[in-house]
């Protein structure tokens, strides 16, 4: 059991990790937008800084589109100094609500899982 710990990530682990990231992306995007309105690339930068959630950068945009369809985000094109307009997103009232409720779910979920994982990661007990 102990020997397994330092093994490189196996393929199933990678697949699971990719699914996990994908599942969390929505919450992470809502969290990024909590403070102020941002455009796609700024959201991506926020995600890169605080987590490594994003696999391909293009994946953020379809999710933004759906969150907007669901009424959680609102968007607007704004002219920029760069010479082309950028599409800014911000949270709607129901987007804020969703972020809070998802945040609570995440917190209790993570706390429960962490306590379950304590013996596993300490490497004590059965070997």
């Amino acid at each position: 059991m102990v020997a397994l710990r330092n093994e490189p990530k196996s393929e199933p682990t990678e697949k699971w990790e990719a699914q996990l990231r994908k599942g969390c992306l929505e919450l992470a995007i809502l969290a990024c937008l909590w403070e102020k309105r941002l455009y796609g690339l700024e959201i991506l930068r926020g995600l890169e800084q605080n987590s490594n959630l994003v696999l391909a950068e293009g994946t953020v945009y379809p999710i933004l589109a759906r969150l907007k369809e669901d009424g959680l985000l609102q968007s607007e094109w704004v002219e920029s100094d760069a010479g082309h307009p950028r599409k800014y997103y911000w949270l709607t009232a129901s987007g804020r609500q969703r972020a809070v409720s998802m945040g609570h779910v995440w917190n209790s979920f993570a706390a429960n899982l962490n306590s379950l994982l304590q013996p596993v990661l300490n490497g004590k007990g059965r070997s």
Partner: protein
Amino acid sequence: MTSNPMIESYFAALTTQLSDLPQPKRDEVIRELRAHVFDRLEQIAVPTDDDCRTVLTAMGTPVEIARQYRVELLLNRSAWKISPWSLLRTLFRWTLTGIQGYVVLVLAMLGYTVGACLYITALLKPLFPRHIGLFVSEQGINLARFPDPPPGMEVLGAYYIPFAVLLGFLFTLGTTLAIRFVVRKFGRLKQKVTGLAASA
């Protein structure tokens, strides 16, 4: 704003891949992703082909991005929506992926056509009371015939109108529920399969 053949061909491919999105939505997607690419290249004074390639690779392939838009915007929604139009559109895309999709589409069209015909007979009943109705004879049941009226006795009279509307509604509803079931049950599976094929 810099432009580059590599970037142009990338967006041409993406436009093709997104062809099943409605035009305004597609234009908006392209515009947004272009802004992303230009912003990424902004930091470099004179972007080389390699720089463009790096930015586009980080973005993901047009096939993959289009697939995700489809997953997020279309199939997810039509699996729950009740509008026959959006369901038929989803089915229409399916027909491109195989024979099962085609069979389901034909059955769906048939179901909706029968429903529509029943509504039409209800509408026309006041105009052609002797030609439209529920006619029962030894040869079976007839709903309408032109130019001669169908054989047999008309049994419903004016009640034919609510009868036809109800029956038409049941056909439309039944077809819609059946498609929704099929799309939800097999749609995701299909997507997984095509997704794997695309990433392989």
